């Protein structure tokens, strides 16, 4: 596959790896956060840690749009799905995520009509095909996904489809990064910046990180060489005492983002005063809701929503994992009480979460495996 396979070359990875090792100051350790769950996934799926200098630790950030949805919010969605005549539509990612009353899959088993879609446009199509039903799209995702939801609402409006609405859970990445940067117990040396969010918002919004907080940030693609190259670039900045926003992913990310996409969002949505993030707590201006003008497409307004808040379980140490204070396996419940089948904390709920990725892909002793797989 073009624009994919070129970035999976093991030979070049070995070369980068050697270069990176050379960039590390002896005796020094480095902690970089990949904000985006997509990167976490890439790192584990390709076994990328085998190429990282020992001195470099990657901290898996909060950028998994599935993981950050608070349980109460999912309970609200299930409540909507259980109303008579409703068809709830959702990306596959969300189906197995447990709320306080189980997951979408559980609700479906209890009888709710919940369907998986690939695109919000598919949800709209279902609405078109089922005029007697009320079709709700469970909208999740960062700025990457919000424009698609917005475009779908605009299309519903243009076509005069009135049995379609959006349960809007879109979140914005900058306030979350800022919340992490402001937390006292955190030590980070740089950021692997989210590639696809940046395709929409561009690179400028990160500049405060480089300027105010003095941390390098490299906007990064999702193939393994993209990530390695990005680590290489951060290490280079650090070696040269720089802190800048760089764009490793220029083939996809224009420096100024996608103005049409930003425009679509702003036509249909506006910032919420605050939104609760699972594992991180309430963050102000960190999420989007439908505007008054599109109230007719706003499931939050159409349906009476209980709005129950479910506290994160006590055993959960996700906050520490998200900030890099603990490694996933250092959490007391990791792998025993907390597994992908029965997640306790947010980092376990989707395969992009730090704990789930480590559990699914990295749950083995690298030392022993080296022995097992050596020819």
């Amino acid at each position, binding site marked *: *596959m073009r624009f*994919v396979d070129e970035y999976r070359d*093991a030979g070049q990875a070995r070369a980068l790896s050697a270069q990176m090792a050379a960039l590390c100051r002896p005796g020094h350790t480095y902690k970089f956060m990949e904000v985006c769950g997509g990167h976490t996934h890439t790192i584990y*799926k390709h076994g990328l840690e085998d190429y990282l200098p020992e001195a470099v630790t990657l901290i898996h950030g909060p950028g998994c749009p599935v993981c950050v949805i608070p349980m109460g919010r999912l309970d609200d969605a299930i409540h909507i799905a259980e109303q008579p005549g409703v068809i709830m539509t959702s990306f596959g990612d969300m189906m197995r995520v447990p709320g306080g009353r189980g997951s979408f899959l559980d609700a479906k088993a209890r009888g709710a009509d919940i369907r998986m879609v690939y695109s919000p446009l598919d949800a709209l199509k279902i609405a078109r095909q089922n005029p007697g039903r009320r079709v709700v799209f469970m909208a999740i995702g960062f700025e990457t996904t919000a424009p698609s939801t917005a475009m779908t609402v605009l299309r519903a409006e243009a076509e005069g489809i009135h049995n379609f609405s959006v349960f809007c859970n879109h979140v914005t990445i900058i306030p979350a990064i800022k919340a992490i940067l402001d937390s006292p117990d955190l030590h980070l040396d740089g950021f692997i910046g989210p590639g696809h969010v940046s395709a929409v918002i561009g690179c400028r919004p990160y500049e405060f990180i480089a300027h105010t907080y003095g941390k390098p940030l490299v906007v990064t693609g999702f193939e393994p060489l993209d990530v390695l190259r990005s680590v290489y670039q951060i290490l280079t900045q650090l070696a040269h005492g720089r802190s800048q926003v760089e764009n490793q992913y220029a083939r996809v990310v224009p420096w100024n983002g996608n103005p049409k996409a930003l425009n679509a969002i702003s036509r249909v949505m506006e910032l919420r005063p605050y939104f609760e993030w699972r594992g991180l707590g309430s963050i102000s201006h960190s999420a989007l809701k439908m505007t008054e003008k599109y109230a007719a497409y706003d499931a939050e307004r159409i349906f009476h929503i209980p709005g129950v808040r479910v506290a994160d379980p006590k055993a959960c140490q996700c906050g520490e994992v998200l900030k890099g204070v603990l490694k996933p396996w250092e959490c007391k419940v990791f792998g025993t009480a907390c597994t992908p089948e029965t997640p306790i904390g947010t980092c376990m709920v989707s*395969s992009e979460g730090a704990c789930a990725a480590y559990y699914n*892909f990295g749950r083995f*002793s690298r030392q022993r495996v080296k022995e*097992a797989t050596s020819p």
Partner: protein
Amino acid sequence: MTTEPSEETTAAWAETAVREAGHLHRPTREDQVLERIERARRGKARIREELITLAHGAGGKATHTLIEAVFLEAFRNPLLEPLADGAVTDGLAITTDSYVVKPLFFPGGDIGDLAVNGTVNDLAMCGATPRHLTASFILEEGLPIADLRRITASMAAAAHAAGVHIVTGDTKVVENGKADGCYITTAGIGALDRGATLSAASVTPGDAVIVSGPIGDHGMTIMLARGELDLEAHLTSDTAPLHDLTGRLLAACGDGVRCLRDATRGGVATVLNEIAAASRTCVVLDENAVPVRPQVRGACELLGIDPLYVACEGRMVAVVAPHRADAALDALRSHPLGTDAALIGRAGDDPPGLVLLKTCFGGTRIVDLLVGDPLPRIC
């Protein structure tokens, strides 16, 4: 270049390991945690849910838990216990499967040949020659009889191709909305006349892991044929009877063949996990060696799905003794259903019960059982 990377921090381990000494290994704290987790995983299966969900039918962890905690618990007996493709007793192999595919007709096949081939294959995986099939139908009222004729015609053709007869059957009709057109359950009896004793437990470190052809064709064909994803591709199901292929393999390798499994629900990854668990070996795969058609890979990338978990209906995994690997590949490749057979990995000894993948990128990761169906990872 002056700094050769340290063995700890680069993928050069593949080379340097050659030069390494013995297997001395001091467990770290992480190792201890991992050990605790493995113990927890090997413990008695327990169901936490109250209701059946689709995950219980997907072939992964939830299915295994259900089978062990409910079915095995209730029915336990020595023939059932191995939970293999079929039961083996008195020179006979016995198997059954229900088929609930949607749509009923898809590129490359339909529920009819699936129901025959699937059961023929389970017998073949036991090392048996398929003899007799039974077929039981659950029909939804409203099913066009023309569809039923099409289905029975392809069952007849598939049975003919596999050299078996459908010797008895049953038909039930349920109300509209209580089925999905047509469900078929076949059971099969085969003769254990090939002199092979196959079992997942017999797999030994060093054994070669072979797959008989490109993986995931069936599952992806079905996913596309449902039309919900609006994806188009020239893809057809791989549904085929494998008894002849296994016959050739067994003739060529005799008891060098340890174990055969058709990689249906849950795909190759699930089958390999079952083998690793039963044999307490570590199966190590080479991602570069796993045959996947470009369209299957394209659809998988688009949907965020791993082809290792996508179902096949005419592919099998064969584990053979190291010295028979070449003979096995030759035998498979000489058969039309095995032309693209490939050696995709080896059994190792540590960590026991795990499947590891050496990625195309040179890294290593686990290939675990999924909880349920591979869900698209889109956003």
